């Protein structure tokens, strides 16, 4: 089955077109040197619209996590460029990148999302505190209420269930109103009910507050929560779907041989 592929023709413009939150051009990432070198990303051009919920999918080892790390400024690319809005990430020094992460990017990971020594409330406000800013208390209450965490704020991570821990991580990611929230298999460790809850929360933050979310996942039914699915294979873009359903995603993946 053939899948329509969105290609970005020619040289990308230097500045981000309005409405694009994150963008990569010619992104390459090579691990190791010489004969053992692994090309995790082999030239990726991709853009994520502001206010969109995108899922990145692909077979294991296709470079999904690597792409996300490079987009989020967690890792440096071997070649190519990444823009967050108008800011070019590639070439930023570590401190600038760090400051940018805590103010303009939110993260939700599969596991080990929270600092075990801090109660939920502190975990949620941590990036803002690191940036030296105070969360707007109305917004804090709003986020906490939407994620159903009001009763749990004083608990430490080990006193929370896996789903609750992920919700705390989402609250933390949403609180600074970042340009984009990156989530790497956020439901990977959860049962289907908690997983659905988390995904519903991510989607509603996109719908209700215009948050941009980019999520890596293996699960076609998780991808169905997104507006758009970007497919990756062997470090290259291998197609994309808009308004996906679990079935269309599954078909697309089969087409990639996954």
């Amino acid at each position: 089955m053939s899948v329509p592929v969105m290609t970005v023709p020619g040289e990308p413009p230097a500045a981000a077109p309005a409405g694009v939150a994150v963008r990569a051009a010619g992104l390459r990432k090579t691990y190791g040197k010489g004969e053992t070198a692994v090309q995790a990303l082999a030239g990726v051009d991709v853009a994520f619209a502001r206010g969109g919920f995108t899922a990145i999918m692909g077979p294991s080892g296709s470079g999904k996590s690597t792409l996300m790390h490079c987009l989020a400024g967690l890792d440096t690319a071997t070649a190519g460029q990444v823009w967050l809005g108008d800011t070019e990430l590639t070439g930023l020094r570590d401190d600038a990148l760090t400051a940018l992460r805590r103010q303009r990017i939110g993260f939700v990971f599969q596991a080990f999302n929270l600092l075990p020594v801090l109660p939920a409330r502190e975990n949620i406000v941590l990036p803002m505190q690191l940036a030296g800013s105070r969360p707007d208390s109305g917004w804090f209450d709003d986020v906490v209420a939407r994620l159903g965490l009001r009763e749990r704020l004083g608990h430490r991570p080990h006193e929370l269930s896996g789903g609750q821990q992920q919700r705390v991580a989402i609250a933390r990611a949403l609180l600074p109103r970042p340009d984009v929230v990156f989530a790497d298999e956020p439901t990977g460790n959860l049962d289907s009910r908690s997983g659905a809850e988390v995904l519903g929360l991510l989607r509603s933050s996109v719908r209700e507050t215009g948050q941009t979310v980019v999520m890596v996942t293996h699960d076609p039914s998780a991808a169905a929560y997104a507006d758009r699915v970007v497919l990756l294979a062997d470090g290259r873009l291998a197609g994309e779907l808009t308004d996906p359903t679990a079935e269309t995603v599954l078909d697309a993946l089969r087409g990639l041989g996954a």
Partner: protein
Amino acid sequence: MRSVLLAQLRAHAARLVASTLAIVIAVGFVVATLVLNATARSTVLAAVGAQYVGAAAVVTSTEGTSLVDDVDTLTGLDSVAAVAPSYETSVQAGVPGRGGAQYLFVESVADDAALRWQRMTEGTLPDGPGEVAVSERARAEVGDVLTVTSFDETGAEIASEATVTGIVDLSGDPQAGLYGRAFVTPDQARQWGAVDPVELRVAAAPGAGDEQVRSDAATALGARQVEVLTGAERADEAAANMLGNAMALTAVLLVFGTVAVVVAGLVIANTFAVLLAQRTRELALLRCVGATARQVRRGVLGEALVTGLVSSAIGAAAGIGLAALVSALVGGAEAPIPLAGLSVPWYAPLAGVLVGTLVTFLAALAPARAATRVAPLAALRPVDQAPLRSRPGVLRLVLGLLLLLPGIGLMAVGVTAGDVLIALPGGVLSFLGVVLLAQRGVPPVVAAAGRLAGRLGGVPARLASGNATRNPRRTAATATALLIGVTLTSAFVVGAASTRATAQAGLAAEFPTDVVVEGFAGELPASLVGTLTGTEGVERSASVLAGSVTGPDGEPTGAFGVDRAEAAAALRSTEDLVLPGAGEASVPEWLAEVWDVGDGDRVALGGGDPGAQVPVREFTVRVIDADNPLLLDADELRALSPDAALGQVWLRLADSDPERQLEVVDRITDVVAEASPETQVTGLVTMRAEIDEILDALLLVVTGLLGVAVVIALIGVGNTLALSVVERRQENGLLRALGLTRGQLRGLLAWEAVLVAGVAAVLGVLIGGAYGLIGAASVLGELGTIVLDVPWVQIAVIVAVATVAGLLASVLPARRAARTAPVAAIAA
């Protein structure tokens, strides 16, 4: 299992560095102590026993009977080649170009070459009367003519001269620095006052053995009250006498060695606990694939054994090297501990390796037991994120209190009774209790300090305080190691300060004058006071009149007259030497007894010269210590004894270091010798200063020794942090991903180190300070008035040094942590 063990050791070698270092330092310290002790012993034996090396036998009198007649008896024996009687006496000798006379201890030189043991630096031994060889301490040169004052049996002075023929090398003899020694012929020694030989040294005839000579001599002198030993036996005895103090020093050093070993044990136990905690999954996997709990435990203990053995061996070698270094550095100088060369007794490295290996093994026991409790399933479970909760440890609490409370009780009794022998066991008991309870007490304090730090240091400090308390047991063990070192150091610092203050007060009371200038013949020229007052370094002076009065018993007695205000200003203390005002007489105890008067009684004193018609005067008696003279007001003495003249000048010197004060005393001696040859200058100030210096040196040594324990403990702090960094790789990655800069991450670890080290330092100083005061109070309580002194500056320095060193200990781990890539959080 062996291949697994070796693979583990190789893989974790870097992480074992800290415990290895701790063992190396502790073992090195113990071995160096033992080697230095053996070296001192053989050095002393060589020096003190030198005179007996050539002697087959030595005869000493047991009942004080003269040995003179025995010389001929012994010389007549077949197995005896020669007999040298040893005469001893002492003289006052003046060296040309040096003012004043010095004390010289005189020994006779054997006539027979075999019994001459003296090594010469220069020149030769004397051959006849009028010749003398001296030790370096006499500071004379070959060819100098000494003016010698000796005393005959009746105590009459005899003046003579002697030419220096050689300088004797006494290096290694611990007493060489005390006073000058002179070596003369036996005849000369007798002329200078020696009466009987103190011992007879006997040389063997060719072919005769020492033991044969000894038994022949013993048989020949059978009826006499003498002791006959072989030369070797006598040498051992002499060295043993001399080394009594050195043994005490060794004991003290070994106590500090024990402290170092205990602290190292804590650090090692910690390292192993953390290493194993990190390997929980690895060990569980081993269990999954079929290793029994026993095999796992054996593997862990084997690892400890190999680590202990290897690092103890390195430590033993390092200890011997250290001892060699110390011996080389100290050997030449006039050191209080005699050291020459290096003697390594077989037991020193053996003891070091044994202690080091054993401690490592014991320290690994508890972690090894914990490791065997790892369930095979742990390999399959995701990493536990929950902070560790240690069990309350009721046993530890009860045991700690059982040690602490009676210990405190004993110390209280010791202080009240002023008996250190009661307080000391109390101190040891309670300290063991403190160490046990620290496990429980330290974490809450760290948490409290962390809350405070969190307010000051922002997010990194708050995270650090959380981290520092998440594994209470590990934090407590790390802090306890440092706590022990800091507690003992501050106990010594505070104890020494109080000892010094008390000693100073006591010495000032006992020797209130810095320098006393006194005329032998009685009278001093009046102009001397002005000259002395003008001498550099002299702060105040008081002239003291010497005259005489007639007591109520009708006997004339000498008396001194002082101006109370003037004299008080020149004295360090008037506690013992009570100065009389008008109408008062300070009467020494013995005289008060003779006169049969007590404090507050009235006594009538008449003129000193029975011929002169002087009206009797009434005085109120103030009884003072027996070693003082009778003191009156100067004007009143003049009224009773019109011919009273300047008899003494009391001088108070400006405060400065002993060398400077010694110079001032020398200057005064010169000034006085010029003005009036018949005077004596007594500089008590130098004695006080010397006691001070000894205390200072002692304190320095002790602080240095305890420093070893503190250094080991700080390695532990760095170690714990390094392991935490490894453990928290993911977490640190997460923090970096969420926006913690590298600098902030380094700050986080620095805060953690400062919290642990700072709390240990502050607690240690508080506890140690209390111990120091208790110790001083109980030791000095026997001696009388105690002056407690807390050296705030030193204490602040201890806290600062421990905290800053803790901070430094965090530098390497922090650098490693800062390299954590943000992706580490996800790439678990």
